[in-house]
């Protein structure tokens, strides 16, 4: 390789190394704090290409400017009406003031610890201001979860903003459970409740069914009673009319009727079981007597 080429290569390499030490990019996702011997001298929030003195004179500190999200632990709190509830929240936050953040906090992990303390304290104080019915209630208007979340956010934000340059953008409840004993009691109660509802349905069914059957039976006996009555009346009419016909006919000669009727009854009454004793004087046997036969 010629001398000239050597020089060019060497110089290029030297320039590249220098550029790597001096120039740096700021990405759209980050904030940059340039420190000089540990002391912050410049804050950069616009993405682009910048230059600095090489390390260790000036150092680039990068911070994620995006919205961070983390979840608190499950913590038990007390509501205004002394009810226990276990809550877990998600917290959306971001760095708002890079310099303050760098000076007060330094890293995302430390930030989350500090935020967590503030958020949990806010949770406690806000939850303590509302009764249980503001959290769960069948009356829609009573539930004020979003209002509570807004208050918590504001409250947390006022502290983090001032002290750490952190903006808490959103706090939301992402888990809501009861303490173990309460939950067990709820299970038992749910079972009992369902049992009594089932019993109610069954009792209702029985009652209604009995009612329907009784009504049907009543109607049945009404119908039959009325029919019986009407039948009796009709038969009575028949009897009466017959009696009328008889009377009209027989009163023409009651004596003769009595005679005929009695003869009829003899036919019926006197059967083969009957024994009759005739007197030899009787008219009927008159002609059996030899004397008369002559």
């Amino acid at each position: 390789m010629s001398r000239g080429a050597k020089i060019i290569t060497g110089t290029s390499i030297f320039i590249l190394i220098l550029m790597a030490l001096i120039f740096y990019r700021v990405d759209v996702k980050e904030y940059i704090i340039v420190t000089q011997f540990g002391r912050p001298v410049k804050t950069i929030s616009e993405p682009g290409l910048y230059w600095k003195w090489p390390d260790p004179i000036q150092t680039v500190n990068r911070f994620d400017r995006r919205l961070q999200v983390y979840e608190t632990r499950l913590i038990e709190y007390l509501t205004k009406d002394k009810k226990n509830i276990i809550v877990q929240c998600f917290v959306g936050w971001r760095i708002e003031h890079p310099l303050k953040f760098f000076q007060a906090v330094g890293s995302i992990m430390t930030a989350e610890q500090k935020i967590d303390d503030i958020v949990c304290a806010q949770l406690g104080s806000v939850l303590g201001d509302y009764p249980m019915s503001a959290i769960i209630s069948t009356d829609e208007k009573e539930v004020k979860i979003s209002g509570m979340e807004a208050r918590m956010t504001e409250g947390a934000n006022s502290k983090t903003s001032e002290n750490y340059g952190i903006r808490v953008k959103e706090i939301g409840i992402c888990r809501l459970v009861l303490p173990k004993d309460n939950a067990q009691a709820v299970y038992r109660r749910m079972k009992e409740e369902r049992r009594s509802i089932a019993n109610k349905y069954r009792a209702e069914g029985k009652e209604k069914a009995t009612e329907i059957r009784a009504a049907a039976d009543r109607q049945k006996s009404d119908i039959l009673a009325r029919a019986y009555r009407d039948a009796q009346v009709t038969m009575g009419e028949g009897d009466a009319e017959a009696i009328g016909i008889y009377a009209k006919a027989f009163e023409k000669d009651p004596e003769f009727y009595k005679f005929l009727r009695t003869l009829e009854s003899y036919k019926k009454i006197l059967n083969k079981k009957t024994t009759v004793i005739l007197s030899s004087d009787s008219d009927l046997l008159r002609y059996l007597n030899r004397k008369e036969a002559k």
Partner: protein
Amino acid sequence: MPKKDGFFSELRPDLKMAFSEIRKISRYVIYAAIFIYFLSGIYVVGTNEIGILKRFGRVISKEVKPGIHYHLPWPVDEIDKVRIKEVKRMEVGFWVKEEEAEKLKAAYGKRELEVAAVIAPYSLTGDKNIMHTRIALQYRVKDPVQFLYDMKDPDFLLKAVVQGAIIDSIARMPVDKVLTIGKHRLQQEVHRMSQARLDALGCGIQIDSVELKSAEPPQYVMAAFKDVINAQEERTTLIHEAESYRNQTIPEAQAKASAMLQEAKAYKARKIAHAQGETKRFSKMLAEYSKSKDVTRERLYIELLEEILPRMKKYIISEEGGEDVVRLRFFSGQK
């Protein structure tokens, strides 16, 4: 130099040759490296993707369309790609996954299932009942810049926000509503609340659909819930049976009533006809009788005796004294 004689003096010409070879190749290697370096600027954006081009970290193009493009190589330009048309899926909610349920059962045994159920995730209804809910989400990236550069972990945020929406919506409904008519409303509310919150945070995610895959009471009380449904069905059955009894009994009674009336009418007609017949007969006989009373009476009397005496046992007693009882036997045809 005399000091460098021996090992080194033999090595030196070989090293010199090696270096000269390397120097010859190195020129080409360098040319190739530079070429490859500039070649690295070629990139492809896929058909369901959108590219975002940055120069020195600053966004210079928000919407690089699918296809082959060229940018200046690193560290000048950089391309980020987002699958913008891809529909992503996520399951969110509070329920026990099957594998976990098995583990819990094994760890706690059936008797302690209620304890286990306390550990499993659930949500609370407005009337303090415990429910397991399982929601299937379908979502897309609607703003790639927001999605990539404003959010650290958008999928995680989405899950948390939707969970919050589930808690909020269920906390307003009684359990019976959640299990029956409220399902549709729940889906709507969760969708609406989540989307609003995501938009307020500038998340860049669009929720396409929220589907309630299941909303159930926990295993421990499931049987009791099913029994309520059974009880409802039993009630309906009992009532239906009673109604069909009624629908059978009343027509039966009416038929019977009708029959009774018919019989009575028949009786009446019969009685009247009978009377008419008898009286007609009587009138005829009366007419006869009126013509010759005594003779007719006698005749009728004897006719009667003719009819009834044969079948009776007869004794004839003499009026004139105790002796000479005459016993006559009329042939009666009787054995």
